[in-house]
Each structure stands twice: as structure tokens, then as C-alpha cells.
């Protein structure tokens, strides 16, 4: 392989009381690719995300990002290093307006925002950037709407715009198209493809047609373990994968 690895886990394991959610996962995501993490419910996909961004602490194993170990780094620091996640349940700031939601992320480029003595107006300089992102996800006309009042699909779009605003080197998207209408799915897929041109994406996704069209590489998890890895065509024919998805295939 020519490309270099941006994110790597070694023996990543998470045990909860009496049950292993993630078991000895070795994952290597190549820079500049879209890597999908799929698997049946309860396979440990979201737990994996929580471990990578240190919303959960692994029981064993290491995580390396851009060649540095981040296993023990704090979540906010990991985000500042350029590894930014989205959430399965739509994560917006419900009472803030759409524009403000995006601006919160853009504000990060200013460094820390501990300046409580400065007027909000200083943030207006970010509006042009925010508007461009809002347009990219198809939310024009909703700028002044409270994020909590948006329909589900548009909340997800807003969340992606907010994540993109950070210009992360790598995005972790947790089911970006879940609960979306058909048109929304197409728009978001196109958007992911576009933004992935100059960054790396690792996503959990249930919609297999999205996975098939978007991803360069797929890792299949089942009961916390890696079942198979490879391109969509290889993975989808893998007997263990078929079995995991359809139950005992030859029953």
C-alpha cells in the first residue's frame, strides 16, 4: 500500500461488567480514504467511536493518530488535534440558531474563547464562512431558525456542517444518513464524498448502498471483533459477514 496510516488502533479492547463490547480490534485507516465501519446492532461500532475520541476509556490497547499516541488524551484535545466526531443521536445546540451552531465551531479557529469582555459582534467576521457551510449542506433559508426546530434530516445536515467547520483532518461520522429521507441521503452522500477529497473519513453506516458507493475500505465488526476487512465486493461475499447479517445463513 502506498498511502500512510492516519489512525491506528492496536489491540483495542473495552470491557464492561461481564461483557466485552470491543475485543482486540486492530484498525488502520489510511489517510485520504473513506473507511466504513459496519456490522449488526450491538457489534461495538459506536463504542469504538467513543474509545477513539476518549468519551470512553479503553480497558486495553492503544490508539495512534498521526503517529502520536492519543489513548490517554482528553476528548477536547483530541478534537483540537484534528480528529472530530459526530454523534448517532443528532447533536446540535437546540436553542441556538442554525448560524450560531456553525459559528460555535468556527469560533474554535480563534483559539480559546475565554474573552467574556468582547461583544458578540466580533463573531460576525465568521458569518461568511458559516453561510458557505450552511449552503453546502442545503440549509439556506434556515439560518435564523433554532436548531431544535429543524426536522431530523436537516439536524443531521447541520451537524455535518458544524463538524466540517472545524476543518478536521479526520472526521468520524456516526450514522450520518440515519433517519433521513431519500433526497437527504443523496445530498449528504454527495457532500461526504466532496469533503472527503482532502481529508479522511471513518464512518459507521447502516445504509449499505451508501457504504457501497462511498467507501474505499470496509471493516466489519460483530460482537466486538473484526470479522472481515476489505473492499465492498470482497466483504459482501465473505461467508462470515453474510452469516452475521442474516443469522445462520445455511439454516
Amino acid at each position, binding site marked *: 500500500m502506498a498511502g500512510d496510516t492516519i489512525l491506528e488502533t492496536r489491540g483495542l479492547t473495552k470491557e464492561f461488567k461481564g461483557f466485552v463490547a470491543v475485543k482486540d480490534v486492530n484498525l488502520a485507516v489510511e489517510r485520504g480514504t473513506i473507511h466504513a465501519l459496519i456490522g449488526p446492532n450491538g457489534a461495538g461500532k459506536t463504542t469504538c467511536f467513543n474509545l477513539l475520541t476518549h468519551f470512553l476509556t479503553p480497558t486495553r490497547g492503544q490508539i495512534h493518530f498521526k503517529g502520536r499516541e492519543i489513548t490517554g488524551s482528553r476528548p477536547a484535545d483530541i478534537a483540537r488535534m484534528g480528529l*472530530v466526531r459526530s454523534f448517532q443521536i443528532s*447533536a446540535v445546540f437546540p436553542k441556538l440558531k442554525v448560524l450560531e451552531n456553525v459559528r460555535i465551531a468556527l469560533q474554535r479557529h480563534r483559539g480559546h*474563547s*475565554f474573552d*467574556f469582555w468582547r461583544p458578540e459582534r466580533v463573531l460576525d467576521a465568521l458569518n461568511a464562512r458559516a453561510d458557505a457551510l450552511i449552503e453546502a449542506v442545503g440549509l439556506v433559508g434556515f439560518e435564523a431558525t433554532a436548531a431544535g426546530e429543524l426536522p431530523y434530516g436537516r439536524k443531521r445536515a447541520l451537524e455535518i456542517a458544524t463538524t466540517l467547520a472545524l476543518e478536521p483532518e479526520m472526521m468520524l461520522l456516526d450514522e450520518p444518513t440515519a433517519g433521513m429521507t431519500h433526497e437527504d441521503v443523496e445530498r449528504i452522500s454527495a457532500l461526504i464524498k466532496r469533503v472527503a477529497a482532502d481529508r479522511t473519513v471513518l464512518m459507521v453506516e447502516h445504509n449499505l448502498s451508501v457504504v457501497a458507493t462511498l467507501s474505499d475500505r470496509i471493516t466489519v465488526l460483530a460482537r466486538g471483533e473484526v470479522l472481515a476487512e476489505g473492499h465492498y465486493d470482497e466483504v459482501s461475499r465473505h461467508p462470515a459477514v453474510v452469516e452475521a447479517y442474516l443469522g445462520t445463513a445455511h439454516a
Partner: protein
Amino acid sequence: MAVLFAVAPWVGLYPVFVMKVLCFALFACAFNLLIGFGGLLSFGHAMFLGTAGYVSAHAAKEWGLPPELAILAGTAASAALGVVTGLIAIRRQGIYFAMITLAIAQMMFFFYLQAPFTHGEDGIQAVPRGRLFGVLDLSQPMAMYYTVLAIFLFGFLVVYRAIHSPFGQVLKAIRENEPRAISLGYDAERYKLLAFVLSATLSGLAGATKALVFQLASLTDVHWTMSGEVVLMVLLGGMGTIFGPVVGALVIITLENYLAPFGQWVTIITGLIFVVCVLAFRRGIVGEFAAWMERRRARPGG
């Protein structure tokens, strides 16, 4: 609002009463910054009001500091206490956060009850008001009045600015969705700590000013009921609104003043108001009014 308060003593309102309202309004605004915009319910805010009161009263009376330095000393003491309390409490959320602040406030209460410099039940009495910057004689009621008004307006503007600042935006984001704010790279605890210290400092400013106005620092201001009272003021006036805490403080202090002849009944009446407020109009006076205006505006053709 500034104009209203500026003319208040000339339309027959008793200056000491208005000054009391202003001190509590500042206290409530400071508390509102924390609960209304940071989403943090402190149940020990009396310690910041009372600590500043004791320190500034002691500084003015025993050390002979001029009023501006006495107030500064009291405010600084509350800010320092805010940093220590904040560092301990901010790691927990919801009820645990409230309980930790209450526990620390109770410890402070018993410290002040026992410490000799506070004179226990008697409090520090006959605190000299002195001359502001060596020139303005604060024993003149009007000089004191406008000094208090200036301090209140300063505090109010600090809160207003903080809420509408880049910092305020992040604080609101953390209140709305803390995990998401963290995932965007914001260190939620440090933002909450800053909000907590700001709130403690301004509560201290209110307490220090109050001690000079009444020339008294007493246990009342560090008692847990005071922590409860400020919650009531903010809830009644409208949590998370700009003017709510001022209205809440005005209503509560007015009730306490005019119902004073009924003695213990005041407690029952304020308790009733609290229940009615929480059950019937949760947004508080200002919050409900704003919502009503919004509905009127939204009505087609209205």
C-alpha cells in the same frame, strides 16, 4: 432601567430600600449568569455574598481601608473562594454539583459562626462607610445611593457583556449539549469554571456593597436560606433572561419589606410564590412576558 433607578429616590422611594433592591438585583444577576446561561445550579451562593460582606466590613472597620479598597478586598476574597469551590464542584453535574456547593457553603457558615473576627451572632456592626476615593462622603444618603447604583450598573453590564460575548456563546453551547461542545474541542470544565468564578466575583461585589450600605455584615448573608432566596429571585423573575433577576429581586425584597409586620408569614408567602411560579409560570415574570410578546408578534395580522 438606569433612569428609573436614578430618579427612584426623588419620587418618594426610601433610598435604603432601593439600595437593598440594587444589591440583591446584582446578586441575582450574578447567579443568573451561572444557572441561566451555564446551566449550573449552585446552592451555596450565599457564601460569596457573605464572605465579601465580612471581608469588606472587616477591612473598612478594623484596617481602616477606604470604601473602594474595602469593596475590592471583599470582592477579591469571594473571587478566590469561587476559584477553590469551582475547582471542586465543577467536576460534578446536576444534583451533585448543587450538593457540593451547599456543603462548602455550610462549612463556610460554621467557620463564620465560630471565627472571632465576625463577632458570631452580633455580626460586624457600625461599619464606617468612609469617603469614596477620599472625596465623596458616603455617609450622605444620596452619595451612597448613586455609588451603589453605579456599582450595580457596572455589574449588570459585565453580566450582559459576558452573556453576549464569544465566551457566552460557548457557555450556551455547553449548556445545550456538553458532549457535542467537547467534541468540537472545547474544554467544557474550564468554561464552566470561568462562569462560576465570574458569578462568585459579582456576587461578592454585591455582598461587599451591601455591607457598606447597611454598615453591617452578619450571618444572615452566609446562611443557606440566602442561597435559596437568590434561586427564588431568579426563577420568579425569569431564568436566562437579562432583566428577570432584577425584577425578581425587586418583587421579593418589596414583599419582605412590606410584609415584615406579619413576621414569619413572609416565609410562607414567598414559599407559596415559589410553588405557584414553578407550577404555573416556569419562565418567570420576564420570561412569560417575552413569550407573550412573541405570541402576539407571531399572530397573523397582529
